[in-house]
């Protein structure tokens, strides 16, 4: 059959299209769509032993919101981690990119090394940092003692006041390289004459950053903010590996709490943790939508 008009062989038999798409759709239906539906179903049920479920309506949700102090503690920790971490992540990545952008001959090799932590698993990164934070022989306390600041030595992961921040530093260490590379790519895509003109106007580097670079990179920065936000709101691996949520719930995140309620509490109730997961996912979607709306509406510099 000769295809009509000039658009070429863009058509295919239904059988061929089905054959190409069905495997993907089956996997999606069985391992993504059905589990999501089932999580919603679980969230309004109470599990009483195997295969015995009782419909409880919104009770799980009410219990979570009104009488679960650990949940609110986890929300507080996750919120702190997310807000501070997201800003630090994107700003830090941008500053690192600017350092490399000015270009030394070593820049290329350096960015490869800076990106390495991004590729390593949370298990590797987490264990390395548990050791670096070790009270007796961890590098951080060793360095503090060596420069005579031994009074500041800490059990970094063992003290409820420092544990969350210690995990945050590790998380930043892992992800800064990612943000740096993305900002660097965006910087290289900028028209050179804009930065050159700023140079001629002799404006200081801070003014250049605030008035020229940040506005011009804004679309990229929004992307990074959203990605970093989502990653931190769902933080599980690193906390689980480094502290398990302790000490005294000081690093408990919503995700680690969901896992504990589902598998560590021996209640075999998947309903309650599913309700938390539904609630928290809704929060994430809501905030992402809000962020993109608010941030995108800002005046953008055209070039």
């Amino acid at each position, binding site marked *: 059959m000769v295809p009509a008009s000039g658009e*070429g*062989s*863009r*058509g*295919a038999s239904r059988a*061929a*299209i089905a*054959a*190409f*798409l069905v*495997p*993907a759709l089956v*996997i*999606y239906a*069985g*391992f*993504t769509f059905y*589990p999501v539906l*089932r*999580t919603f179903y*679980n969230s309004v049920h109470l599990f009483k032993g195997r295969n015995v479920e009782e419909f409880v309506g919104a009770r799980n949700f009410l219990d979570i919101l009104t009488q679960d102090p650990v949940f609110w503690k986890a929300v507080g920790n996750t919120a702190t981690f997310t807000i501070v971490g997201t800003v630090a992540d994107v700003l830090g990545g941008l500053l*690192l990119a600017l*350092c490399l952008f*000015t270009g*030394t001959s*070593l820049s290329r090799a*350096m960015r*490869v*090394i*800076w990106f390495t*932590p991004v*590729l*390593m*698993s*949370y*298990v*590797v990164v987490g*264990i390395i*940092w548990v050791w670096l934070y070790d009270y007796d*022989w961890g*590098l951080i306390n060793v360095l503090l003692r060596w420069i005579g600041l031994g009074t500041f030595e800490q059990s970094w992961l063992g003290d409820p006041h420092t544990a969350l921040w210690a995990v945050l530093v590790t998380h930043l*260490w892992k992800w800064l390289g*990612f943000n740096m*590379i*993305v900002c660097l*790519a*965006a910087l290289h895509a900028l028209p050179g004459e804009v930065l050159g003109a700023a140079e001629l106007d002799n404006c200081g580097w801070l003014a250049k950053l605030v008035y020229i670079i940040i506005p011009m990179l804004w679309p*990229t920065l929004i*992307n*990074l903010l959203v*990605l970093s936000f989502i990653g931190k709101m769902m933080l599980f*691996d690193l906390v*689980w*590996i480094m502290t398990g949520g302790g000490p005294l719930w000081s690093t408990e995140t919503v995700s680690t709490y969901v*896992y504990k309620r*589902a598998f560590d509490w021996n209640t075999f109730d*998947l309903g309650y943790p599913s309700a938390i*997961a539904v609630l*928290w*996912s809704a929060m994430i979607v809501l905030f992402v939508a809000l962020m993109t709306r608010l941030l995108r509406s800002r005046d953008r510099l055209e070039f």
Partner: protein
Amino acid sequence: MALWLDYLRRAPLVVFLLLYTVITGGPFLWVAAMALRTTPEILDNPYALPIPPHWDKFVEAWTTSRYEIYFFNSLIVVAGAVVLVTLIGAMAAHCLSRYRFRGNRLARMIILSGMILPPQLMILSLFQILLQFGLYNTLAGLTLAYVATQLAMTVYILEGFFAQLPQDLFDAARMDGYSDFEIFWRITLPIGLPAVFTTVVLNFIILWNEFLYAIVLITEDDKRTLPLGIMHFMGSHQLDVGMIATGLMISMSPIIVLYALFSETLIKGMTAGAVR
């Protein structure tokens, strides 16, 4: 301006760059050194060079510390999932990018929606479902879950690339009497190889490092993947720092090899979604 003055002005920047390089790269070198030292040596002085190097620790880790089992479990699951997701994803991407048909946009929207769904929304019921079908605590079950987690990203990357291939190629192939499947297998895949390769390496690294799905879907020691195996070993041998370090090196080794060979591809691939 005199050249030396210029250098002097840039000195703080260069010092900072070198410092940050040490901060990111240093810990890995430290682990590499510890991997070749025995635990008593490390406890005596954690920050020393591996002299003499104990290469036999790798043999010990491999045999007596069960890392061989964990390594092969990881390899089976990750290789299986990567092959499957590449094939299934490429077929879907070829279809979505090449053919016009009713429901194209809908099918694309459905498959790509997998990228924005938080894993927490699926993981608990995935545990239930795999339990029901006898796939809980099996490598096959974990493999299928992994295919599902990586499908959306794979289709996204491949579709973008396949859509740019010139239509003339496909028209010519059809003139020559190629069937739709032959077009996919003998035109799209070979020409799209750079993109296919990127997804293969990316998926391999992401799944090799994966922890959340594995810890929920696997509890038997004989089925543990490397990240779980190391965590388990750490739990029971907290103080055997030397052997844990050797395990970390074993788990990092495939990634180090891939990164050494394809650093630019990897950096581009990992960040492609965020660059705008």
